[in-house]
């Protein structure tokens, strides 16, 4: 057996340097990462990267920063597995391996000139933040913007400062709700779907992008369809375990679709053809 070195393979990692770590909650931290030579990641909102630490492994993480902001990019990481727990142990200046960006992100072109309704549940706000900030940075390209956010409780809310800023802006309608809270909580209590009827919208002019845990999709989609938004104008980001990112390993496959290459973002008229996808 002979070993041949190759210069170009899908498994090559770029050496990313951690430039900032922001604790968000007890479970989540945000990492700012710089690529060699200060290169831009060149991603679309909604895409993901494979983050790796040699000796530990690799995991798919969605990019939470907008490509319009700086050259570095940001990842929100929940300590939920072998790799993500190891990431939480790292310090500023440490290196991580980066592959990607992978997949098809949120649809920018169809959204332009239209009203948009962005809905996030739990950690789903992380990938959606990349789109929200992209929209804010190109605010005049879009019509009315509504953002709905649901989380378990106020303690698990991510990006609190930014949420406050979105709430303040007069050109964005921001509304959030928690499943449960202490009596002193002044905001909404209830599941995310309870916020949808309150949104005033022109259904044919509205595109909705939904991002959250798998259980949320069916209920949210039902509400959106009831509002009269066409199936083609509802986009979902599907969570699967993208292992190789290259459309080969089979882990993220739903029927004939590879989430890592064909997704993770799909329009509902496509998703509903894929039995068992949501």
């Amino acid at each position, binding site marked *: 057996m002979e070993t041949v070195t190759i*210069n170009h393979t899908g498994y090559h990692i770029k050496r990313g340097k951690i430039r900032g770590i922001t604790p968000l909650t007890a479970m989540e931290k945000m990492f700012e990462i710089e690529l060699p030579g200060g290169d831009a990641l060149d991603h679309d909102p909604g895409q993901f990267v494979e983050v790796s630490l040699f000796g530990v492994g690799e995991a798919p993480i969605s990019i939470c920063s907008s490509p319009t902001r700086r050259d570095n990019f940001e990842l929100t990481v929940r300590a939920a597995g072998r790799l993500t727990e190891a990431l939480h142990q790292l310090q500023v200046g440490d290196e991580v391996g980066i592959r990607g960006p992978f997949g098809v992100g949120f649809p920018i072109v169809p959204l332009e000139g239209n009203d948009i309704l962005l809905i996030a549940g739990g950690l789903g706000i992380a990938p959606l933040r990349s789109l929200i900030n992209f929209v804010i940075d190109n605010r005049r390209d879009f019509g009315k913007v509504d953002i709905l956010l649901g989380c378990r409780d106020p303690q698990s809310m991510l990006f609190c400062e930014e949420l406050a800023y979105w709430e303040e802006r007069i050109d964005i309608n921001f509304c959030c709700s928690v499943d449960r809270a202490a009596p002193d909580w002044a905001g909404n209590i209830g599941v995310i779907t309870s916020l949808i009827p309150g949104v005033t919208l022109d259904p044919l002019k509205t595109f909705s992008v939904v991002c959250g845990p798998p259980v949320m999709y069916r209920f949210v989609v039902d509400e959106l369809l009831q509002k009269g938004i066409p199936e083609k104008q509802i986009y979902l980001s599907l969570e699967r375990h993208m292992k190789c990112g290259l459309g080969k390993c089979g882990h993220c496959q739903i029927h004939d679709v590879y989430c890592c290459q064909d997704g993770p973002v799909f329009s509902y008229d496509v998703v509903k053809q894929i039995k068992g996808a949501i």
Partner: protein
Amino acid sequence: MNQTLLPKTRLDDFIRFLSARQKVIAPVSLGNNQYKFDEVSSLDEISLHYIPTILPPKKYYMPQHETLLKYDVSKGQEMEAVVEVEELVLFGVHTCDLAGIQCLNMVFSDRPKDLHYLIRKNYLTLIGLECNDYCDSYANCAMLRNHLPKGGHDLFFTELADCYYVHVNTHRGDELVEKSGLFDEMNTQAEGELAELRTRKKERFKSEVAIRYQDIPRLFDETFESPVWEDVGNRCLACGNCTNVCPTCYCFDVMDEPDLDLTKGRRIRVWDSCQHEVFAKVAGGESFREERKDRKRHRFNRKFKYPVDRYRRIFCTGCGRCSRTCMAKIDLKETINALMEERE
């Protein structure tokens, strides 16, 4: 493409000629009517009349454990991408397994290309061997038209009375014929014998299931919710035997193998199976094919439906390995028949 003849008396010389140049891999007997592809150096080690080996030759194209990267974390995340290669001649590969390799070739040359696979493949020479008769009742090669050669080989041997009819398919194959100096000119008698054999095969190999090739994907589409899957799921032990022995199952896991110093190591890929419960689990703990019936249905669809949408080809080769190896005796032909009955 041209044809030539190898007298049977010279086959051993040919094997020895090959093995003097590089390792030769061929089917060898393990007893109990079971076989495996293994290294040989002469004809007497080879089982020329064999039923499909336990593992298909995919183990040489994408080994069970394969190094992708070598890493060193003593100075950050340093790495070097590698391919482990070895020049091999695979001799005696049946048409079902040639078809399996063609399927893998399609998957790994689809973009983004998998260079680890494609580079290794270049080191391998394929010599096919025709099945003159059925191997056993598990095979379903005729329904998929894989009982006849459809390319994918460098040389292809068909056994006649006194000699092998040899199709030369590539430059690499031609070179072996030329350099060995063991082959004879084609003659009309051999041409006649081959035609006769093929006629005989036409009679012998009839589609094992009463369905037309082009109608198969639709069958699986229409029976997605069939109770047949319930039954199959109740029997399945989820051992993963069917995927490991399948010539076209290529799912894998990627993991790191650190050396004892914990600074150097290798990133490897290992065969994985969609039949295991954890296969489609995400970090949040949710599994998307939790039930055995979901996983079994997924596997059948990954042979007969999904690859047709993506690669315009059915990924079942008809080798019968999954039925042969299944502890629960979930039989591929029976399952297809049950689905067809269900639909009526």
